[in-house]
């Protein structure tokens, strides 16, 4: 499937954190032809293994969950809700949504709904100047109260009903590009690796539960115990009313992150591969927590050398997240080339074996000196 088609499929499907099953099936189907082995972790993350010719394990990942809403109450047939993940409440008014109600019964699945907006005719000027808190919003599913109570219960999940839109210059807009776009990059990397020789085992991973605390990445990375892990996640692109500082323009390739979350050698290697292959990128300074799976993966077990590639994205966490498909293809290519560039020599470097041998020699000398002095 092309990057654009796969993105559309993933974007228009629904999977709030903890409920990624529909996405998981799509990811498995797409990864399968390129993988030697596919497993699902106890938490639900997908791990596709493509074996290399030598030693070493590299993990590339994106998360497949999305932010969403959750039913808190039914009032006169209208649905009250709260959020799973961070929403700007101002974007919710007049959105079309899907309420994922009880699956049994006709019309009992995926109820279409509208987050209602009172008409301006009945609003005072004062009311129109106020942001409506989430607790005062409601979802209308066009059913009488008794039927709503049959089909919907407190705790049911709600997602945006949004078809992907194609804009100019190979840009697209839609929901849940954060971070299904990264899953597309990982799929593109697997496709690329199918025509390349690579020494290291490549673990292509689609993680669950990122939006609620990086939970999928923490656990799947423990299971894989990679020598290097690369997270792919969205970051703010150039867009109206924001600063251009430290952002990648849409269509500008990608951000390669640097900072405490990133192993300098992984960073350097990513940059070098990008340069060697004339893939456009920009270095992004991340001065602390990146808020991505890279943050969790870095401290798994005894610590994992971690890199982060950032997909430029406008209007994050809205239903019109906008990105460049060309950027996704570029990232996929870079990931494939990066994985293929890893060899035994690097493995020793990553593992610090070369350094360790040196240190041991020095340490032995030191011991002898100390002994003499005694």
């Amino acid at each position: 499937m092309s990057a654009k088609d796969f993105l559309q499929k993933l974007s228009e499907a629904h999977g709030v954190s903890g409920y990624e099953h529909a996405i998981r099936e799509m990811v498995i189907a797409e990864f399968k032809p390129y993988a030697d082995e596919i497993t699902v972790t106890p938490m639900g993350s997908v791990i596709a293994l493509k074996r290399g010719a030598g030693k070493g394990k590299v993990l590339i990942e994106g998360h497949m969950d999305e932010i969403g809403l959750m039913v808190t109450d039914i009032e006169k047939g209208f649905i009250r809700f709260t959020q799973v993940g961070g929403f700007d409440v101002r974007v919710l008014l007049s959105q079309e949504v899907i309420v994922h109600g009880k699956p049994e019964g006709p019309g009992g699945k995926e109820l279409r709904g509208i987050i209602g907006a009172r008409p301006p005719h009945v609003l005072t000027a004062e009311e129109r100047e106020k942001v409506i808190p989430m607790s005062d919003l409601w979802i209308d599913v066009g059913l009488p109260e008794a039927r709503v109570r049959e089909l919907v219960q407190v705790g049911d999940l709600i997602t945006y009903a949004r078809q992907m839109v194609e804009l100019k210059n190979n840009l697209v807009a839609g929901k849940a590009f954060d971070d299904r776009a990264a899953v597309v990059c990982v799929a593109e990397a697997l496709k690329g690796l199918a025509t390349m020789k690579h020494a290291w085992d490549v673990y292509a991973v689609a993680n669950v539960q990122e939006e609620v605390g990086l939970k999928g990445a923490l656990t799947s990375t423990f299971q894989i115990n990679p020598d290097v892990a690369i997270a792919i996640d969205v970051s703010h692109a150039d867009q109206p009313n924001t600063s251009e500082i430290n952002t990648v323009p849409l269509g500008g390739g990608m951000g390669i992150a640097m900072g405490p979350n990133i192993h300098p050698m992984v960073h350097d290697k990513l940059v070098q591969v990008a340069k060697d292959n004339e893939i456009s990128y920009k270095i992004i300074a991340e001065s602390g927590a990146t808020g991505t799976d890279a943050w969790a993966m870095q401290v798994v077990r005894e610590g994992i050398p971690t890199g982060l590639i950032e997909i430029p994205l406008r209007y994050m966490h809205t239903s019109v997240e906008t990105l460049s498909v060309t950027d996704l293809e570029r990232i996929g290519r870079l990931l494939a080339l990066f994985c293929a560039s890893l060899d035994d020599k690097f493995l020793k470097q990553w593992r610090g074996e070369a350094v360790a041998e040196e240190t041991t020699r020095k340490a032995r000398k030191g011991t002898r000196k100390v002994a003499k002095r005694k």
Partner: protein
Amino acid sequence: MLLEKLSNARGVSGNEAEVREILIDAVKDHVDEYRVDTLGNLIARKKAKGARPERSRRTLRVMLAAHMDEIGLMIVHHDSNGYLRFEKVGGMDDRVLLSKTVLIGKDKIPGVIGVKPIHLLKQKEREQVMDADTMTIDIGAKTKEEAQGLVKIGDYATFATEFGAVGADCVKGKALDDRAGCAALVEILKHDYPFDVYGVFTAQEEVGSRGARVAAYAIEPTCAFGLEGTVCDDSPKKKDVSPVTRVGGGPAITFADNSLLSDRRLVNLLVETAKENKIPYQFKQAVAGGTDAGRIMLVKEGVPSVSVAVPTRYIHSPVGLLSTHDLDNLIALMTKALPKLAKGLPEV
């Protein structure tokens, strides 16, 4: 379904051509003549059929009006980096605009109304309503020049909402105000009446009922009915305010809105007809909005007028909702009530 076609069609005030074409197609086989006037109104005439009314009623002309136009946006500026600025056409709450998809101009260029991500907002910004004139439409253009080549100043934009079924017997879509009235009027024109009926699909209601005014001037109707998709505010609220109308409660008969004071004889005609035929009905319980009927009533020496409507939730936003039962009942009520006019207006 005609309503689906009408709702998906694009016709912001002043640019009703696409809607008009659909309506010409829908009515041409059911009327004796039709024309399009200077403002873009589609005026369809059905001559009297069957038993002629009494001599004194021979000149009876009944005007039925439903407006074709919808609220929308108009492009006013190209930003230096390829984004578009817009103004609203018709009354709209700025708060419904963020994170919506639109289609711009004849070529239906897709665009999105973006917003600074929550991650970059200061708490103060999150608590502030964003004014429409600070918003931008993103069509993916890289430069001002590219945007200028794709979209012109003055191009209309509509919400890219698609019509569809919701719940058991409701539908959702854009522009249900007043494509619901248009769909009802088409059905009403399929019946014969013993007097001349003018079905007028009006232009520019949302910017001041300008089409209805000139159409009524030309027709000189004896009386007029405005068919609407009207305000419905029946969702739960903390404050105890009027729901205005209720979805599923039947067609809403208006006593008065901000422009109209309905003729009591016509109100009685509708109420009596509804009772006789056991058609559910309700009264619009608030003085809100202005309609074509309010303009028509003041044309020339005055025209007794009434407005009757399908209760429609979330009008003047990207997506509204109505019950198809209410729409069917509006059609039933009108087709039963109109023939009674042959005997003259009922007394108060």
